[in-house]
């Protein structure tokens, strides 16, 4: 029996090659999309679960309530926290502080220094986390403060194929190089680890990286604290203990004054929870993985719908078989089994092809999504595939199995089968559904593209092309005061300016604490104004050349001037937003409304420029040459980047590589041994929108596939419809219809469906895209243009697809089409 079904299924497959191709290919593409996206989503959701104790590992957070009622949530923690936790909370088994810093590293045999990111951790780090130790002795490797553990990738970079153990690495800490001996090599962190590492140093080195008072201060925060709870401890029950611990260590008064509180966040929650500040862990918005999963399911669904609609259209020919089988004694269950079995066979074939596709497309997908995923064929994944096969075949085979099997043999054998109105309604609504989804996806694609190009082409208020930013590499440790750092920057700039004056293509050079490359990184300062209200500003320390170099427009007053020595001491330039914020009618000569600020004066106002990304509005900004003005009057400061100075070069050159080479030459004479790290402003701006660009690429690819699959379905439907109407078309032609009127006749039916789909899709897509655009402070309007473009492109694609069939039908000689009846 099964053999018989199998044979007939296979023969049907080959007999209707076009439909089989559409079904299998469409489904295979759908499945490939699903698998790839599934892999990505699974990777996202499995972050940090590979640690054997993942359910007991937590990251501490702190909150501090400000005077104006704002709550500051932070995952950077004060250094004494770890000690206190170990002491007062017995449920905490292990704990580590993690401090991250960048500095130069050199292997003794190699002269070139590398700027490396390093972590300073406690010995417990290796017990809490399951990062695999490839070589080295776990017991002794962190005993000596001058030992270092490195990742496999780092070992290969510094030592090649040599055994890295007992080799020496010179690491610059607080301005001097110190030798560390490699005592362990860790396997690279897995792709789904929120923590990454290359060089790990013992905790004893921390005192030379942060100021001494930080070791006892509860309000200086540097890095996260991770803890391992005892096996039966419940994190919720610890809250009360934390409260009493804080009262003990902080003193009751300070604790109630600051409302300082701490809590624990599960390790596995970190990656997909953007509500906590990310700190050193990688965090991504879970909305993106939901969105991706939705797109994958949509594509799969569209492919399943194809399967259904095509089998409905083919049911006329299969109906006869149903009739015959029923008169031969088949009952309905037999036929249901047969049709579902056929669907299952097709699906298994499609899955096989789909797996092959996804295997082929994986590198492309990794490129697209910025990941490095791999397929692993495990028992689990085979089980999921089998489940998928059954699910898809159940959905895809539902029409023939349930409806076709119920046909009455008398009717179908007599040829009285009328695919009555309700069935063609079902089929048409499926087409409408497919096209609604496609139009919505096109709509989304166009909107995302428009928004991205809007951001890229928006006038940011400063020059982005031909500006290059070079990191000074000046050390910004606790032993270097801010003013000294800036003085060093000025000196270095003068040296470079002297050397470079001969070089061609460099128009100007400026030094500043921050440049437009450090998005989200400019000083955020807070101060109490004269009415004792908390005020917040952004700030930067710049030189007289900064405004010229970046081409920022001065709308009132003047720029800093070298000939006016008092500028260096007491001048300030603010942006228009600041003037508006404080409601100054005549800003020149004003000062910031904080009583604590030292003597200063606004000498100029610049047009607002986007020193942050376009996700946020332009905030009030103050710029001075003298850092003391800013630091004198503030009560808090936030910075996400090192305040080590940067040099901005404005270029004016046709030969970029030659100019860059000459700058590098100068660099090596002025600051020998410091790496020449440079960034072009326009490139770094693009990097700000990487997540959006990735989204855009994935949505584009997804809608491309969705439309292809929907068109395949439409193509099949159109060909079946033309087949059904061959006689009608023949009669019409005999009676004198022109070819174009016949094409129109066929296309009209589908045009109607696409238009209905358009009406359904537009409001839904509009709603979703408007809410996505809310993420941007500066955004496009979804105009009629986008709506029409989405609709028209769907219509054009549908017309092209259907026209092939209808034109073919008109070219048939009516004599043939009428005789065949």
């Amino acid at each position, binding site marked *: 029996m099964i053999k018989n079904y199998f*044979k007939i299924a296979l023969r049907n497959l080959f007999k209707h090659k076009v439909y089989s191709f559409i079904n299998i290919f469409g489904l295979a593409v759908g499945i490939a999309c699903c698998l790839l996206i599934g892999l990505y989503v699974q990777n996202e959701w499995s972050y940090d679960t590979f640690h054997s104790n993942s359910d007991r590992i937590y990251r501490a957070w702190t909150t501090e309530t400000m005077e104006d009622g704002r709550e500051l949530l932070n995952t950077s923690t004060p250094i004494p926290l770890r000690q206190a936790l170990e002491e007062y909370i017995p449920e905490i088994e292990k704990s580590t502080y993690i401090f991250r810093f960048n500095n130069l590293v050199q292997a003794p045999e190699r002269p070139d220094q590398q700027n490396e990111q390093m972590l300073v951790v406690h010995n417990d780090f290796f017990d809490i986390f399951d990062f695999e130790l490839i070589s080295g002795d776990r017991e002794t490797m962190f005993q000596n403060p001058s030992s270092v553990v490195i990742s496999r990738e780092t070992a290969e970079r510094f030592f090649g194929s040599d055994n890295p153990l007992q080799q020496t690495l010179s690491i610059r800490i607080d301005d001097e190089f110190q030798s560390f001996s490699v005592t362990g090599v860790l396997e690279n962190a897995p792709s789904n680890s929120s923590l990454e590492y290359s060089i790990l140093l013992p905790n004893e080195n921390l005192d030379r990286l942060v100021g001494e008072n930080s070791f006892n201060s509860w309000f200086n925060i540097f890095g996260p604290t991770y803890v391992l709870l005892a096996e039966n401890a419940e994190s919720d029950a610890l809250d009360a203990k934390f409260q009493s611990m804080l009262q003990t260590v902080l003193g009751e008064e300070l604790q109630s004054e600051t409302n300082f509180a701490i809590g624990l966040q599960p390790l596995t929650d970190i990656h997909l929870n953007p509500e906590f500040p990310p700190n050193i862990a990688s965090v991504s918005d879970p909305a993106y993985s939901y969105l991706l999963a939705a797109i994958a399911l949509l594509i799969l669904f569209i492919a399943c719908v194809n399967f259904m609609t095509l089998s409905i259209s083919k049911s006329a020919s299969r109906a006869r078989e149903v009739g*015959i089988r029923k008169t031969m004694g088949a009952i309905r269950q037999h036929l249901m089994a047969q049709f579902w079995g056929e669907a299952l066979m097709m699906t298994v074939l499609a899955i096989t092809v789909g797996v092959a596709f996804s295997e082929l497309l994986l590198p492309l997908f990794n490129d697209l999504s910025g990941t490095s995923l791999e397929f692993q064929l495990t028992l689990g994944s085979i089980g999921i595939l089998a489940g998928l096969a059954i699910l898809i075949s159940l959905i895809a085979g539902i029409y023939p199995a349930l409806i076709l099997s119920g046909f009455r043999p008398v009717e179908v054998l007599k040829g009285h089968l009328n695919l009555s109105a309700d069935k063609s309604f079902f089929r048409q609504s499926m087409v409408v559904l497919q096209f609604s989804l496609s139009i919505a996806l096109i709509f989304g694609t166009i909107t995302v593209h428009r928004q991205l190009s809007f951001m890229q082409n928006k006038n940011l208020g400063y020059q982005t092309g031909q500006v290059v930013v070079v990191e000074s590499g000046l050390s910004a440790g606790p032993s270097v005061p801010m003013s000294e750092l800036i003085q060093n920057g000025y000196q270095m700039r003068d040296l470079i300016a002297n050397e470079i004056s001969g070089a061609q293509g460099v128009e100007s050079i400026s030094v500043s604490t921050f440049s437009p490359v450090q998005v989200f990184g400019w000083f955020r300062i807070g101060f109490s104004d004269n009415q004792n209200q908390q005020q917040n500003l952004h700030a930067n320390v710049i030189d007289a050349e900064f405004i010229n170099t970046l081409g920022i427009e001065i709308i009132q007053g003047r720029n800093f001037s070298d000939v006016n020595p008092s500028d260096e001491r007491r001048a300030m330039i603010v942006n228009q937003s600041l003037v508006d914020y404080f409601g100054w009618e005549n800003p020149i000569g004003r000062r910031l409304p904080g009583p604590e600020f030292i003597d200063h004066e606004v000498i100029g106002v610049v047009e607002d420029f986007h020193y942050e990304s376009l996700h946020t509005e332009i905030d009030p900004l103050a710029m001075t040459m003298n850092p003391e003005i800013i630091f004198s009057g503030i009560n808090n400061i936030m910075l996400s980047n090192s305040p080590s100075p940067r040099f901005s070069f404005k270029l004016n050159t046709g030969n970029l590589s030659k100019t860059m080479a000459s700058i590098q030459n100068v660099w090596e004479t002025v600051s020998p041994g410091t790496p020449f790290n440079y960034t072009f402003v326009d490139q770094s701006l693009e990097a700000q929108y990487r997540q959006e660009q990735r989204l855009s690429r994935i949505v584009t690819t997804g809608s491309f596939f969705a439309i292809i699959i929907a068109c395949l379905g439409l193509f099949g439907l159109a060909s079946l419809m033309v087949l059904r109407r061959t006689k009608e078309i023949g009669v019409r032609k005999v009676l004198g219809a022109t070819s174009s009127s016949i094409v129109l006749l066929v296309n009209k039916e589908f045009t109607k469906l696409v238009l209905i789909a358009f009406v359904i899709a537009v409001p839904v897509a509009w709603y979703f895209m408007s809410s996505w655009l809310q993420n941007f402070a500066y955004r496009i309007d979804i105009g009629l243009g986008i709506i029409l473009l989405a609709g028209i492109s769907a219509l054009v694609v549908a017309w092209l697809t259907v026209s092939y069939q209808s034109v073919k039908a008109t070219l048939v000689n009516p004599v043939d089409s009428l005789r065949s009846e």
Partner: protein
Amino acid sequence: MIKLKKIYKYIDKRFQRTFILKDIDLEVKEGDFITVMGPSGAGKSTLLNILGFLDDASEGEYFFLDEPVHNLTEKRKSDYHKSHIGFVFQAYHLIDELTVYENIEMPLLYRKVKSKKRKAMVAEMLDRFNIVAKKDLFPPQLSGGQQQVVGVARAIIGSPKLLLADEPTGNLHSEQSEEIMEMFTKLNKEGVTIIQVTHSEKMAGYGNRIVNLKDGVVVEENPYDE
């Protein structure tokens, strides 16, 4: 074997009732070879479908081997259908995707006949109808007459008591028609009850009884008796 009492078949459309069969009384004895005749639209095929359990009467009683069919469950009907009734159609109704062999075999599959026995039975049929050479061909590769031979072979492979034929020769030329009719006569002699529908007087001649239908009513039964 078969008793029809006051069988009606009608279709209700809006406020109008269209009768296809009206007040049919018919008795068929085992071993009969009955021909149903009448003009197009007289209700011949509908009558045959009701006899073959493919359609239900709107009113009236139908006894098959003394069982009241009008009261049977679907399951029982299907069982009767499988074991007692064979069909031959005007348009042959073979499955194009199956070979001659597989088409003949199909009814046995639904009766769960064991593979070995199935093979023997199909081989016997192929032999009996002289189509062994054609067993691996597909229906579209055969002539109409050959297809109908396969149709007959498929209908009788389950050794039915009743063979229903709806214009079995309607698509065939006379030589082929005669061949099929000879076959029917032979089967009838072996004890199979046959009811056929036909337009052709000549084909009707093979039977031993004629029922004439007009507008759903029996107008004349068995003119040969008079």
